[in-house]
């Protein structure tokens, strides 16, 4: 049975044009910029 790798699936989804609205939503979402930068430093 094929296992699901959510991050791999998401990588494929996120480059699709149809995901524009989703990308916009998450980019505009509730994560404060400072926290987002801290998270990026955490390696993700």
């Amino acid at each position, binding site marked *: 049975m094929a296992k*699901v790798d959510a*991050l791999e*699936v998401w990588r494929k989804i996120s480059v699709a044009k149809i995901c524009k609205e*989703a990308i916009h939503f998450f980019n505009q979402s*509730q994560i404060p910029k400072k926290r987002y930068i801290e*998270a990026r430093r*955490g390696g993700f």
Partner: protein
Amino acid sequence: MSMHIKQNRVSNNAYLDEMARAGNDILFVDFGCGPMTAGLTAAEIFPRYDNNYKQRTFYAGIDISRNMRILAEGINLEFQLFNSDKFCIAETLKQVAESIDFRPTAIVFSLSCVLSSDTLSKTLPKSLAAEWHEFVESFPSSEEVRVIYHNPDGNFHQNWEAFCHHLGKFSQTVRLSYSLEQRNPCEWDGHRASTTAMIEGTKKAES
């Protein structure tokens, strides 16, 4: 973007894994499903314990955005995460309750970060708790429910606690008894990134 996947991974590993291991027939309700970020991580967990999980798991995605609903339909079709007869996308909880033929032993209500916005209506936590209560009652086969939430904001004390408060009121009257919430930090590589929480409801003893 992938942060949302990782947050859902932490939440679902903390609170969904145990339910899946117990061999439940799970109705997974992804409230504010968007592009199925919570559903993707759920689909990672279910096959760990059950090769037949696609027959025993029903995914219901709910979103007010028509585009998101179309997107979620397309994602499941493309990646075959859930069986098409155990998968639905709707605009409301009521539509799901009225349209599916499934007898879950457990129901998961994944709120992702739906309650995290400061701009939500103050009445939303109360109305959502009432809708959830009604939804659960329409599946009498369910003996356990869990509400899973994560919040990337740090404004946890706002809508989530109001939701817990209103849901707690129902435990006085319904067949399920809701426990106090569990709450854990979400961390990656030693960095705190958000908080995840869960309410558990279990069947009351027959009187």
